[in-house]
C-alpha cells in the first residue's frame, strides 16, 4: 500500500521531466538526425545517404566557419574565465554583507533586458557615430570617426559580456566555500601569490571553473544574435548557416546535418575539457 503510493508519487513527479526530455529534447534531435541523412532525389522521393555531410566537407565555406566558430567560442570562454575569476574572488572573499549582495545583483541586472537590447547597447557604444568614437575624437586621439563594430573583436566583446554571469555564479559558489585558512597556509608555508593561486585556489575552484566554462562555451557556440548584429561580413557564425539553410534556402536536410555537426562539436569539446581537467560531470554539476 505504502510502496504503491510512493511509486505513484514518483511517477507523477517524473512525468513532466520525462515528457520534457522525450518530446523537446530526444525526439527533435532524433528527427533531425534522420533528416540529415535524407537525400532528396525529386520533390517527393527521398533516399538515405551522406550527401549533406559530404557537402559540408567539400564546401570550404562550411567547415571554415565551423572551425572558426569553435575556436572563437573557446577563446571567448577562456577570456570570460580570466575576467570573471577576479570578479568572483572579490564577491566571494573580499566583499562583505550588503556589498556582496549588491555586487551579485549588479552582475544580474543586465540580464533583465533581452539579449537583443544588450547587444544594441554595445552597438550604441561601439559604432562609428557612437560614444567611444566621439570621446576618442574629443580627446584628440582620433582624427575622424572610428568604426569599432563589425569585426571579430566586437563579436567577442559581446559574447564575453553575455557569458559573464554564467561564469561568475559557479565561481562565487565554489570560492565561497573555501576556508580562508587554506590561502593563509599557502603563504605561511612559503608560497607567493602565483603559487598560492596555481596550487591552492585554482585546484579548489576547479569544479566551478569547469561548470562555468561548459555553460559559457555552449551558450557562445549556440549564440545567434550577437555574432549577427556585431560581426562584419567576414565574421560568420555557424548558427547563421544553420538558420540560412532552414529558413532562407529551405534546405532542411542540409540544415539538419549542420545542426548535428554543431551538437557533435560541442559534445566532443566538453568531453575533452572534462578529461583534460580530470573532472567528471556529476562532480561539476552536483
Amino acid at each position, binding site marked *: 500500500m505504502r510502496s504503491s503510493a510512493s511509486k505513484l508519487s514518483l511517477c507523477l513527479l517524473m512525468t513532466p521531466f520525462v515528457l520534457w526530455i522525450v518530446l523537446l529534447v530526444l525526439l527533435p534531435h532524433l528527427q533531425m538526425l534522420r533528416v540529415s541523412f535524407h537525400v532528396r532525389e525529386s520533390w517527393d522521393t527521398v533516399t538515405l545517404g551522406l550527401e549533406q555531410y559530404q557537402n559540408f566537407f567539400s564546401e570550404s565555406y562550411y567547415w571554415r566557419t565551423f572551425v572558426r566558430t569553435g575556436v572563437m567560442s573557446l577563446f571567448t570562454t577562456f577570456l570570460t574565465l580570466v575576467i570573471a575569476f577576479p570578479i568572483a574572488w572579490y564577491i566571494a572573499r573580499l566583499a562583505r554583507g550588503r556589498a556582496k549582495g549588491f555586487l551579485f545583483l549588479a552582475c544580474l541586472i543586465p540580464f533583465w533586458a533581452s539579449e537583443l537590447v544588450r547587444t544594441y547597447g554595445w552597438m550604441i557604444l561601439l559604432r562609428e557615430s557612437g560614444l567611444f568614437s566621439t570621446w576618442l575624437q574629443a580627446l584628440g586621439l582620433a582624427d575622424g570617426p572610428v568604426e569599432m563594430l563589425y569585426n571579430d573583436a566586437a563579436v567577442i566583446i559581446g559574447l564575453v559580456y553575455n557569458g559573464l554571469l554564467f561564469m561568475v555564479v559557479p565561481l562565487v559558489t565554489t570560492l565561497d566555500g573555501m*576556508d580562508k*585558512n587554506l590561502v593563509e597556509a599557502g603563504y605561511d*608555508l612559503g*608560497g607567493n601569490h602565483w603559487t598560492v593561486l596555481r*596550487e591552492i585556489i585554482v585546484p579548489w575552484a*576547479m569544479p566551478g571553473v569547469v561548470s562555468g566554462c561548459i555553460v559559457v562555451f555552449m551558450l557562445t557556440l549556440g549564440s545567434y544574435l550577437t555574432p549577427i548584429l556585431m560581426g562584419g561580413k567576414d565574421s560568420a557564425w555557424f548558427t547563421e548557416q544553420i538558420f540560412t539553410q532552414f529558413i532562407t534556402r529551405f534546405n532542411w536536410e542540409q540544415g539538419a546535418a549542420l545542426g548535428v555537426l554543431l551538437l557533435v562539436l560541442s559534445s566532443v569539446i566538453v568531453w575533452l575539457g572534462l578529461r583534460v581537467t580530470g573532472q567528471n560531470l556529476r562532480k561539476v554539476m552536483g
Partner: protein
Amino acid sequence: MASDLFCTDLVRRFGDHTAVDRVSLDVPAGTFFSILGPSGCGKTTLLRLLAGFDRPDSGEIQIRGARMNDVPPNKRPVNMVFQHLALFPTMSVGDNIGYGLRRKKVPAAERTRKIARVLEQVGLPGLEDRNPQQLSGGQRQRVALARCLVLEPTLLLLDEPLGALDLKLREQMKVELKHLQKAFGTTFVYITHDQSEAMVMSDQVAVMRQGRFDQVAAPETLYRDPATPFVAGFVGDNNRLSGDVISVDGDLARLRLQSGEEVTGRIAGEGIAAGRRADLFIRPESLVMNGAVPDGYSRMQATVTTTLFDGANSRIEAGVADQTIFARLPQDGSVSNLSPDSAIQLGWDPQRATVFAGERV
C-alpha cells in the same frame, strides 16, 4: 640562552578596541611557550601578528635577533598549525608536506626522502599517497605538524589545534605534542583557552586577559603563586572567598567573611590594608577537614551541600554564608559519612591561600 622570539610593546587596535595591548614576550630557543586566555582575549590576534598575517600598530617583533615587522608571512622562518589544520584537500598527504619544500626548491629526490622521514617521525610512515580526508582526526593533526616541521622553522605557531578532537584523543595528543617538541627541538608557541593543555605541555605560560599579559611563568609558579586574582581564578580550580581585611601581620592578612568567620591567607597583591575589601583564594586540595586540621591553620565552619564522587578527584560542595566552596576529599577514606546539611570544619595553611584586593563595590 638565546631567545628565538622577542617582542616589545606590541599593540594592535581594531577601531576603538585594543586587541593586543603593549605585549612583550621573550621565548628562549627550544622551549614550549603557551599563551593561555579566555576567548576574545586577543591571543589569536597576537599569533597572527607573529605569523605575519597582520601587522602591529606599534612595537617590534624579532625572531633570532632579526626584525620581522615588515617581512611577509612567506618569508618568515615561522610556520603555523591552524585551528582547523587547513590541510590542502586537493593534494595527497605527501604533496601537502612537499608543498613547502617545493617552494624552497628542494630537489625531488631529497623531497621524497624528507617527506618519508618526517612522516616516520610523527608516527605515520608510508601514508604519502593517502588523501587527507581519509585520515582520522589525530592523524590529520600529525600531518599538519609534519607539514610545518619538515621545513625546520625557527618557530612553530599552534592555534588551538587540539580543539576539534574528542576528549580522549586530546589527552593523548597533549602528551604527544610535548614529546614531539622535545624530539624536534623546535620552539613552539601554542595558544589555547584550555588551562590543562597549557599546564601539561608548556615550559612557560603567559596568561592573557583583555589584550595584556597578566603573568608569564612556569606552570607550577602560575598555580602556586598567581600574580593576579584573574590568574588565581583562571588557572586550575580555586575557591574564592570575599571579605573585609581586619588586620595585616607581616605577609599574612586576616579577613572577616560575610558570615562573620575570620580567615587568614598570604598577601599576593597590592593594596591590602585594614578596612579594604579583599578576596582570598584557596585550592580545593589545600583544604583539610574536621579532625585533621593542625594548629596554626586558618579554620572555618561550613555546611556540606553535597558530595561529588569522581574517583581520585572526589570533592565535597559546602556552603559558607552565601558562598560555595569545594574541598577535595582525602584519598585514604579518613573523611566519610558527610551527609548533606551536616556541619564541617575546614582548615588550611595560611601560606597556601592567596589574598588579593577585591574589586571596588
